[in-house]
């Protein structure tokens, strides 16, 4: 993590060159984020929260560029298609499968995503 001002005499210093991306790139990246997180179990509102959160620079950039309406449309499509995620804990729930994953549930609702998910409390035996 650099803390100093860029040294222009450093031959390895990144020289900014703009490689423009159009709206189709934002739309594609919006769909990729929505699909990946929907496949990990995020629901519509949780995904929208992720897009709104400036900490998530990529999704948020797409959110700003495309607007809430378009992002929600994409999110709804992807959650509809991929949203039937089942979590199976083979030790305690070998067959029925349906259970929630504490890490994912807590992730965006703990108010400070940058601190990462909290470790779930151990279950009583």
């Amino acid at each position, binding site marked *: 993590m650099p803390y100093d001002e860029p040294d222009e005499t450093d031959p390895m210093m990144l020289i900014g060159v703009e490689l*423009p*991306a159009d709206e189709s790139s934002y739309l594609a990246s919006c*769909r990729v984020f929505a699909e990946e997180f929907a496949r990990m179990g995020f629901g519509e509102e949780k995904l929208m929260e992720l897009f709104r959160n*400036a*900490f998530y620079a990529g999704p948020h950039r797409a959110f700003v560029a495309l607007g809430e309406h378009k992002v929600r449309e994409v999110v709804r499509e992807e959650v509809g298609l991929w949203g*039937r995620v089942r979590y199976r804990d083979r030790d305690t729930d070998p067959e029925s499968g349906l259970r929630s994953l504490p890490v994912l549930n807590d992730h965006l609702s703990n108010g400070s995503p940058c601190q990462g998910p909290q470790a779930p409390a151990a279950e009583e035996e």
Partner: protein
Amino acid sequence: MSNVYNWHLGRNMAYPYEAAYPKEQFAFVFNINRCIACQSCTMACKSTWTFSKGQEHMWWANVETKPYGGYPQSWDVKILKLLEDANPEGQVWSKEGGDESRAPYGHFEGQTIFEAAQRTLIPDSARVLGYLPTDEEWNSPNIYEDNPVGKRGTRNQFDKTGTQLPTHKTWFFYLARICNHCSYPACLAACPRKAIYKRPEDGIVLIDQKECRGYRKCVEACPYKKSMYRGNTRVSEKCIGCYPRVEGKDPESGGQPMETRCMAACIGQIRMQGLVKMERDGSWARDRQNPLYYMVHEAKVALPLYPQLGTQPNGYYIPPRWVPRPYLRQMFGPGVDAALETYANPDRELLAVLQLFRRSNLIIFRYEIEEGPKVYEGERNGKPFTLYNDTVIAFNRQGKEIFRTTMEEPVHVRPPKHANSI
């Protein structure tokens, strides 16, 4: 120079040696839509094969951050520039399509690194257009990766809300790379001692460490810069395709061909490696149910990296779909638009084949799909989309089932009392 057929280019091209093709060819597909640059592949390779003093600079496998990064720095920009200088404005593809297996991407009308060398290099013994990277360019395996800047004067702490971070109008993606074990290797063509050879059984390209004298002609010639000179041993080295695993000699493999360490370590499940059958003319024998053949020749979602260089690399990439098309066309050739259209709107078979990635470390030689019930019907991307919970079954070389997996495979999690016990 000989005249050999390069099906990536859809035409014959000049190459210093007569064409000689292996029985089977080591090949792989990387779905870089899903690469997160965790570098598990990089470290799996490094901890397995490179050792002792001098290993610090041997990154046979690496993941670099595009478009700015590269290892060595700017390797692709530099070789593209050399070719452009040799053949100004001539590095173009013709739009006409060709025979499916002989010219799937049309015809390349420009010059390869072998052809450009014939016209531009002196002396005549110079066989391949290339360059030797500087020491500085070899210094940083993943330069310009995510490089967040914290608040000035505050170390080791992110901004609490993220709103203070600089906003970049930017895009990037991670490009995972190993040696492409090319069909027409530039390293092999350039070696004055013939210390580099391509194995007839699986097409893996190796440097004979006893024969190598460290002339670095291979380092100069390989356009992907995957041959590396090690200063303290004074010889060059490169990815060996984990050939003992591919031969089935790893104790874990049970005698079956097994994928390389970098593939097996991929937690993003972006990688699949296998062996494809070859025709005598160097094209891939039709093997419809081999997942690599399917992705490269049937669905055409996986494309070679910089095919215009002319080495016919055996690494194939599913391009990242958010990246501007002109950049991708330069990197993966004219097949990009069709590949991304197919990947963004996959059919039933492609969805099933994509489920095969990283369910096993054994090489998959064949797959079959058992149809399952319809689980979703709706619209996506402005088009109707139907999802079926199909089962895809993978088989080994002997036709024995390795595993089966469904489209809606449950996610297996740790029990609560061990949820975070690592």
